[in-house]
Every structure is written in C-alpha cells, then in structure tokens.
C-alpha cells in the first residue's frame, strides 16, 4: 500500500477540500497521513521522513502556496528525498494566472506534478497514472 502525506500549506484553513482529498485517497487504496490545515513545509517534510511516504500531496486554496513552497528544492536535497513524489494542487495563485506560467514555476520549485484549478478526481487519476509509470 502506498503512503501519502497530505495537508493544506500555510495560513489556510480550507478544511473541506482537505477532508475530501483524504476520503478520496483512502477510497483509492492509499494509506493517508493527513496533517490537516495550517501546515508548514517543514512539518510536511518531517512527516514524509517519519512515515517513509511515497507521495507528498500538498494542497492550497487561498493561493498563498507560492510563498510557502520556494524552499522545497533545498529541503528535498537536504533530506535526500529523491524517491518521494511531490504533488501540489488547488488554487495556486492569488488572482488570475495561466496554467502555462504556473506549472513550470512550481516544477522549478521541485514538484513533480502540479494541478492548478483541476477537478479533484482528474488530478488524482493523473497522479495514479504517474505512479504506475514510475514503478
């Protein structure tokens, strides 16, 4: 069973979406470690190390994820988390933004998969396909 650490990054209290992600992941057969809302990047990384997770799935709804995720590349190399798949999804910009700008930007921060304003189940389908190909 693959392990996923998930949660909402930053000062973001959008618990409804977080809970739905949790239920959806469980329904798809993942073991879920849900850190809930208001979570910092450091807390996510700690949990990934502690649980030996396969996937870190960060969500953000109020658009402030960018400010919180810039250090991911650094933390990823510091903890040697090469095998972990990093996913971010939700509403990834404050105000309007184009997919073509957002996706490369977050990939440069160290995310393998980036979902900006994508339907939850579409995103999770994509993530599962990516994990199958990776194995």
């Amino acid at each position, binding site marked *: 069973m693959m392990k996923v650490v998930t949660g909402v990054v930053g000062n973001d*209290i959008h*618990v*409804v979406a977080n*809970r*739905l992600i*949790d*239920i*959806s992941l469980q*329904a*798809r057969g993942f073991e879920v470690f*849900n850190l*809930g*809302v*208001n979570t910092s990047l450091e807390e996510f990384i700690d949990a990934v190390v502690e649980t030996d997770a396969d996937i870190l799935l960060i969500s953000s709804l109020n658009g402030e994820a960018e400010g919180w995720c810039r250090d991911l590349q650094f933390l990823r190399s510091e903890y040697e988390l090469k095998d972990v798949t990093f996913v971010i999804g939700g509403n990834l910009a404050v105000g309007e933004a184009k997919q073509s700008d957002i996706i490369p930007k977050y990939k440069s921060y160290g995310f393998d998969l980036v979902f900006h304003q994508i339907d*939850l*189940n579409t995103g999770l389908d994509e993530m599962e396909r990516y994990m199958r190909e990776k194995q």
Partner: protein
Amino acid sequence: MSLLQKERDVITRNEYADSFDFDEIEHFIQNAPKELFISHHFKKRNGVLVQPRGGFPTYKKMFALYDEFMKADIDVLPLTIDSNTRLNDYAMAKKMLALSEENEMDMLNGYPLVNHGYRTTRKMITHFNKPVSLRHGTPDARLLVETALASGIFEIEGGPITYMLPYSKNFPLDKAFLYWKYVDKVCAKYSTLNEPINRESFGPLTATLVPPCIVIVIQLIEMLLSIEEGVKSFSVSFSQNGSMMQDIVTSNVLKKLAREYANMFGGEDAIINLVYHQWMGAFPRNKELSDSLINTNTVIAAMVRADKIIIKTRDEAFGIPTMQCNAQSVANTKYTLRTLKGLPAIKDEAEEENLELEVRAIMDAVFNDPADTLWRKVFNTIKSGLIDVPFSPHIINHNAVITIRDDEGNIRIIDKGNLPLPERCFAYEKSKVTLPPTQTEVINKIIHDIGAML
C-alpha cells in the same frame, strides 16, 4: 478572598483593559434595567426574537449601526468582536482601532471591546436599552466576558467545544474547558443579582453536513457544563440543515432532551431557550436569491418554534454587510414573522425516535467514561472519536464520520467512525440513502450536498 476572585483579579489586570472596579460593576448589574436582560425578554415574549450579526471597529460606527437597527424595530442587538481580540491580541487590536479612527476606514472585522473598555461601551448599551448578545469565537474569553458583563451585555455566546472544534487547529481543548468554566462561574455569580445572564451555545458547528445527533449532543453537553457552574438561563441552538422535516425533528428532540438532562443535573430552575440560525453554509452570489433563502429560513424558524432567530443578509456571499443592508434584513424578517400565522404543529415519530436513540447512546458513552468530572469525560470522548464533528480542522477531532444527503435533503450518516450508534439506528440512517456506484461519484455528491443552497 476566593480562588475565583483571585483569578479574576489576575485576568482583569491587563494593560489594554480598563481598571476593574468590581463593587461598582456589581452595583451596576444589580440596578440595571430589566430591558437589558435577554432572559427577561425570553420570559415575557410572544413570538421569535430577531437578532442579526454586526460589529464595527469604532465607537462612532457601532453607535450608528445600533441606530439603524433600532429603526428596524430590532429585538436583540449584536456585538460582534474582531478577530485580533478573539485571539487575545489586544496590542494589534489597539493599533488597528487607532488606524480605523484616523482614516475612517475599517481595519478590524468587529468591535475591539477590551480596548474600548467597559466604561465607554456601557454608555452605548444603556443608551439603546436593548438586550445585547456577545458574538465572538474566542477560546480564552475570560477578559472579554468580564468586560462584556461590566458593559451591560447580558448574553454570552460560545463554549469550549463549539468555539473550538469549528475554528481552531491546535488550541488545547482541555484549556478551553477550563477557560469556559471561568466564564460560566462569572455569569452564574452575576445571575444572582438581577435577572439571569443568558449563555448561548453555537450549534451550527462547521455548518458542513453535521448530523443532528452530533449537534444535539454537543448542545446538551455545553448546557450541562454551564448548569454545573450555576448558570440559570441557557440557549441551545442549531442552524438550517437543508430539510425542513429534519429541522423540526431536531428541534423537537433537542427541546425534550435539553429539559430532561438539565433536570437530571439539578437544573430544574434553569430556563432553556431555543435559537435557530439561518443557513450557515455558502450563500448564492445573487442577492435576490439570498433574500429568498433568508425568507425560507424565517418560515422554518417559526415552524421549529424558536425563541430567537439569528439572521443573515443578502450580502452574505460578499463579506461584511453595510448597516443599511443589515437593518433591512431585520425589517424583512420581522415582517415575515408578523404575517406568518396559523402554523401547523408537525411531528415525525419514526425520525424522532431514531434521533433520540442516537443522542442517548452518545450521551451514555460520555457519562460512562471513567474520568471524574464531566469536562474530562467530554474531553476523553472527543479524543476517542465517540463525538466527531465532520469537517472540523482541529487535530483532536477524529474526522471519521461521513455524511451525505438523502433525496429529501436530510443529512444521513453513511460512515459512523467511532460514534457509538446502536446498530438499528445506523441501519435506519443507511436505509434512507441510495449511494452512487463509485466512490468518485459519492465524493462528487458530498461536494454538491455541501453547497446545497448555491
């Protein structure tokens, strides 16, 4: 000096608060006009009391808001507190209040009561001579409530569970119980001087598919915690949940059990009131549709025989309403209530029996916890998921219960997590819903059910 009085001295000795003169405050409460006590209005009322929400940073604007409300023949004035004060950050509230006063722009989302102080605020409350209800969301409301009571605000909303599980990720729940114990003790103490101070619980919780049994259990528990400390007037509450039948069933069971459990805990002389909240979920962005939703809610409030209704405005989807818009909503609600006559009394015996069994089963689980005091029993019960609030952000909450709407809009439990529901009750809940074939469709339906009024 009693231990409580020592604690009160420590709490009220705060650089941002007025210096408290407790003898003067007692004298004021003893001689305060009955009109200021909502408990007095509950006793003599004929009909549903109407109360909006509302709070502005400056004294001037708060005064103007009350003026508008008075023109709409309001029954209960609200005093909504800003979010800095709710988190006990009086320094920031002070700074933002100063900016609001200088720039004629609202830099706070409510009235910073502690910074204004009781001597100033009391002038406004006694001027309007209407009961005022304190609306906040504060885990540690000790200083805030002391200031409110000294100001002439004789209804205090909130409680250790209902102001914690929907609002906070990691404020310690055990501390919240003790801070609210203090609030209840002070309210009880002042209740012996004149009419009783009314305490009100916040039944809507997360307002996201919360099943009635959870709402009722938490209402009963907060009521019992207050009664234990000597509170003599208490309002239980809930919000529109999407099915008129389920609202009526909730009201019937809540009223019956509140009286029964209050008596069981030595609260025979306590007055129990019912408060109904208009829809607490997401509102449509169309103002005319919002008016329609509000009107429907008012009809249901009358159907459930509420003692007070807390109203929304047509601006709900857009943020804090203007004072004119807010006052208009009061006037509209009063009009609907005035013209609504000859309401039938409705019962649904099967639904009421099922709900009552569920509530009793969870209450039994609370009482059977081996801890020595009620608050510790409740704490343990929440910790072990025997009480579980859907969509709570708090780390102590289990988040294992899953609910969905049936074809009639009733909220039904499809995964009971650790809730100690009798098998037949859970079977009843499940029998009412036909779930879509795949989990993906179930989740899409839950998303749809959350936004039922959009």
